[in-house]
């Protein structure tokens, strides 16, 4: 029941945060010269039409009026129509979202299935060659520009060696490269975190006690140290899902995956306010939920820890 109150409290706090985010974007996009109508016409600009369309879209109303109208509708679930794409924003997001989810989950799986064992092995064989190698590899994942990693993988795996399709998202095969690209840096972070967390725990007294009792090394690690070391790691995992979701922007662009990231980038470039707001709200809700789950997990896994 404490948990319930906790969740409610966090949700209540999240609302002003959401509104704050929306307000910031709204204001920023309104300050600049260049409006969606002029952009739609581009080379075929027709002065007579511009003013009329602006009035119709409500672009000439004062900013705060427009913002209030927007919030009012958003509260009912109506995020308006995309300026450029002429479709309902909610529909656009709901159609794009599953692709991003798929990509994120695969990336997260790769990150965790590779990252956690790598971290454990490194910690157990601390300072050995294996340790050095794994940690360097993790670090490289965190040190490359995402589009660069994508390009290299595409070039070698798809183009040179023809092992995988160059782009697309239809089958599992298509998703392998995007998932690797997106998950690599997360894998690196998780591996390093697991390693350092485990190392710290292993120095602790109770581990020494367990060893003193004569238990086998492996039992010591798996049975006692790992469980406690996983605390910060699991928290990080929940947080990472959220940032993976938003970090998918570049991966989706390179591999042609029609997800939320692509929608958001297009929206920014075409000053498509409703669409941008919709995608940002959506992603923000996801990130906030991710943090919320992380905090909850913390308390679930170790009941000694009371939330806030």
């Amino acid at each position: 029941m404490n948990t319930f109150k906790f969740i409610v409290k966090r949700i209540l706090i999240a609302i002003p945060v959401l509104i704050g985010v929306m307000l910031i974007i709204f204001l920023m996009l309104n300050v600049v010269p260049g409006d969606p109508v002029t952009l739609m016409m581009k080379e075929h600009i027709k002065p007579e039409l511009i003013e009329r369309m602006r009035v119709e879209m409500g672009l000439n109303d004062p900013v705060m009026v427009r913002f209030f109208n927007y919030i009012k509708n958003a509260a009912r679930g109506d995020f308006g129509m995309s300026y450029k794409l002429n479709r309902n924003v909610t529909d656009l997001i709901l159609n794009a979202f599953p692709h991003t989810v798929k990509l994120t989950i695969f990336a997260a799986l790769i990150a965790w299935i590779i990252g956690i064992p790598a971290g454990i092995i490194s910690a157990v064989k601390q300072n050995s060659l294996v340790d050095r190698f794994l940690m360097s590899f993790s670090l490289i994942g965190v040190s490359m520009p995402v589009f660069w990693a994508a390009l290299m993988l595409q070039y070698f795996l798809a183009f040179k060696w023809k092992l995988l399709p160059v782009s697309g998202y239809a089958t599992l095969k298509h998703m392998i490269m995007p998932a690797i690209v997106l998950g690599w840096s997360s894998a690196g972070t998780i591996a390093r975190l697991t390693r350092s967390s485990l190392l710290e725990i292993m120095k602790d007294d109770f581990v020494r006690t367990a060893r003193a009792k004569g238990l086998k090394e492996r039992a010591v690690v798996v049975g006692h140290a790992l469980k406690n070391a996983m605390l910060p790691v699991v928290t990080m995992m929940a947080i990472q899902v959220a940032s993976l979701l938003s970090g998918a922007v570049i991966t989706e662009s390179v591999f042609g995956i029609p997800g939320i990231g692509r929608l958001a980038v297009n929206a920014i470039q075409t000053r498509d306010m409703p669409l941008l707001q919709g995608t940002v709200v959506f992603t923000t809700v996801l990130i906030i939920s991710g943090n919320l789950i992380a905090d909850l997990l913390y308390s679930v896994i170790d009941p000694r820890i009371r939330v806030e």
Partner: protein
Amino acid sequence: MEDIKVTDNETVEQLRQDYENMQAEIADTDGIMDKIKAMIKNNKLATISLIVILIFCFCAIFAPVVAPHDPTLQDYDNVRAHPSRDHILGTDELGRDVFSRIIYGARISLVIGIVPTTISMVIGTILGLMAGFMGKKVDFVIMRLADIMLAFPSLLLAMVVMYTLGASLINIFIALSVVNWAGTARVVRSQTLALKEKEFVEAAESIGVKKSVIMLRHILPNCLPSLIVLFTMDIPGSILSESSLSFLGIGAQPPASSWGLMVVNGKQWLFSEPWVAIAPGVAILILVLAFNFLGDGLRDAIDPYMKE
């Protein structure tokens, strides 16, 4: 905490003496340089990284001397030339020497790494100190602001800022610092909260030392180890973010040619003249790795208890 009523000069003098003794014990800042020297002796990887970084800085500062050619000199007869004695890394699509462009590019990339990180650390530190020290209300507001920043997908926020302000180097600084201060603020805040309970702080408050002085003179130095490590580890983030922004078309703009931009422009040559894109990519990788290794080494040496 009770207020200590000060009634006579001797007690004041005694308190002041105790307080300064405690300061000397706890503020370990003088130890930092020693710890760094120890690190240099023991941690080869970190030392090499430091040297690499210094080499890059040297190249950046003395670019006109180090670079064999003028990086903007176009030579249409010598387009996309293979690496040769005259052009160590060949030429790009307008005949400019790639090696010289990389050397000059170091300026941009280093500046993009350091300046926004510095700004965001300063902002984050100030806000974090205030949040930890100035009472519940201030804490609440600042932490909600930080939540908003962290709830926002950082790449998208940077894009929106760039579109609002226009694409230029200064605006990149603004965009990247705006996006990154919240992490620092959180760390500083939690350290401030922990330090706040310490006796010497309470003592200082009771003598009547001003809050701002306490924050600056006493709490801040104790945060310094974490800040140094954070600084070194955030720089790669800025460099990589800028190259992502360049990929999306809204990063550093010519003539300021960052390595990220060189990679983005050069990647269409991957199939025939790969050095045009690979060389700057490798440069990014080396510099970022160097900062990461250095950060790891610093953290192990100075602040082994810092949680990520």
